């Protein structure tokens, strides 16, 4: 923009409001030589002045404080988005670094791998947080208690009380969304049909914003608890790895975190069908299935194991130390260093997930009789 424009505008304003000095009047006349359109203002003084008064009158019907507030809200959302973007960039950097270190380690043959990521934060329990990816690739960080709405095209999603809610999302458009919960997080989502899904740390669910067609299909990784809304005409199917869990109005927990390549589904209500490859089994409430190497086994289940985490507890019942430790590591975002061979012994008990890591160590020490210590971000078992 030409640097003179602002000065000219201010001189003309003074001319219109009769506050212009003789000197300024001269300056304005000088400008008129280079900018002849100024003449229109000088000749139509009263008309232009009335025009401007009318415009200002219209503007002043609105509250400038409200305008500022909405701008600040936009800026806050913008910063959040930027932070998520930076987080993702940082995450990909870490991934590249890890790969680089792995490669260096792999090819140098040196047995000692030094830790790359500098983790000097104090260890704290996980919290309600997740990352939502829209079908257009936009990434939104969900954290904190703020109630807000998210829009994609004609779809509106609500966030309140740490729950992402699609229940009132308009059915005119379908977008494929993904909700990812990082290590040290948990989140809850209500799908368009009313089904509620709790996601545990290091887990994700992929789902359509609106269910169309004759089935309701979602895909998960990690661990999730489903409370499926009843709709006998539209079976609810959860795709997890190569296997599918089919339900009509039931509640169940799927966990792939227990053991590499293993999927454990615990049914707490109703009836489900679990399939993998060409095999499938039907199980009733109180039972669980284990899918491993395309084989399905059925066993009696401990319903507490299915629901404890979403109620805010670690549940140790019937688990060996390695499963217990990996669940704790995912929640507190720590490493575990096993300095002794572990037995297959199964433990009982539990602890609140809001406890400090020190309290958890103390409980585990009492439970196992082993020497368990936390230092920086590493938990050592001796």
């Amino acid at each position, binding site marked *: 923009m030409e640097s003179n424009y602002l000065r000219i505008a201010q001189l003309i304003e003074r001319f219109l409001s009769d506050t212009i000095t003789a000197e300024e009047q001269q300056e304005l006349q000088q400008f008129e030589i280079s900018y002849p359109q100024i003449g229109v203002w000088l000749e139509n003084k009263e008309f232009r002045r009335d025009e401007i008064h009318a415009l200002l009158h219209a*503007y002043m019907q609105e509250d*400038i404080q409200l305008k500022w507030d909405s701008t600040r809200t936009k800026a806050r959302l913008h910063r959040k988005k930027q932070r998520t973007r930076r987080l993702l960039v940082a995450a990909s950097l870490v991934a590249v670094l890890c790969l680089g270190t792995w490669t260096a380690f792999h090819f140098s043959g040196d047995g000692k791998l030094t830790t790359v990521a500098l983790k000097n934060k104090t260890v704290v329990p996980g919290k309600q947080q997740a990352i939502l990816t829209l079908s257009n690739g936009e990434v939104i960080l969900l954290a904190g208690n703020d109630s807000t709405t998210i829009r994609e095209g004609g779809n509106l999603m609500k966030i309140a009380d740490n729950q992402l809610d699609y229940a009132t999302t308009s059915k005119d458009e379908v977008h494929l969304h993904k909700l990812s919960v990082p290590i040290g997080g948990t989140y809850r989502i209500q799908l368009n049909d009313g089904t509620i899904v709790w996601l545990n740390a290091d887990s994700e669910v992929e789902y359509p914003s609106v269910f169309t067609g004759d089935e309701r299909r979602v895909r998960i990784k990690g661990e999730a608890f489903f409370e499926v809304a009843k709709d006998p005409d539209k079976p609810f199917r959860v795709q997890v790895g190569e296997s599918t869990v089919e339900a009509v109005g039931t509640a169940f927990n799927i966990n792939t975190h227990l053991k590499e390549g293993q999927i454990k589904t615990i049914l707490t209500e109703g009836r489900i069908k679990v399939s993998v490859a060409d095999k499938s089994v039907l199980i009733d409430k109180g039972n669980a299935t284990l899918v491993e190497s395309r084989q399905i086994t059925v066993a009696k289940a401990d319903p507490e194991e299915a629901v404890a985490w979403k109620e805010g507890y670690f549940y140790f019942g019937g688990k060996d130390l390695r499963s217990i430790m990996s669940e704790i590591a995912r929640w507190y975002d720590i490493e575990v260093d096993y300095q002794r061979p572990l037995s297959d012994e199964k433990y009982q008990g539990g602890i609140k997930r809001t406890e400090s890591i020190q309290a958890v160590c103390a409980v585990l020490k009492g439970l196992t009789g082993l020497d368990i210590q936390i230092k920086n971000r590493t938990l050592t078992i001796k």
Partner: protein
Amino acid sequence: MPSNLKENNIKALFEQNYYGLVELSCRLVGSMETGEDLVQDVFVKLLDSNTFIPEDGQRAKSYLYAMVKNASLSHLRKLKVIHNYGAMNPLTELSDEDILENIIYAESINQLYASIRNLPQASQNIFNMAYLDEKSNLEVAEFYGISINTVKTQKRRAMSTIKKILFPVLRSIKVLLF
């Protein structure tokens, strides 16, 4: 995260220039709603800690006009690409003369608004009611729940202040008040 100081500065710039900037953008893009959005987006950028703002008030103002102008023109370019908008909207072919014309409107609105904001609160209220809301003596008195005589005294006092700053504006209210 911008410091409080920075945010307060930006807020002051916002209050001093918002309406004029909206006027400028709205004249360029031809939509009040889009104009407001573009101006608010400019301030969102400013609130982001990495954006530089000149300390000098006049330069900051100049900078704001340039940002809003550029945001508006790039919005128009986008429209042109998406909808071949230029074919039916001559606004996309803006001359420098048009820009100057629009900035005069914008800055006149800002200056007038600033002179009203700088009045003492009582004078502002009177001015708003009498001029902007075109209320009568009696209506103003009833609104504030005070006697007509008090209103008259206050008005006279307010008017003498306003006269100094905004004499010409008063011509139209004079008939109304005295």
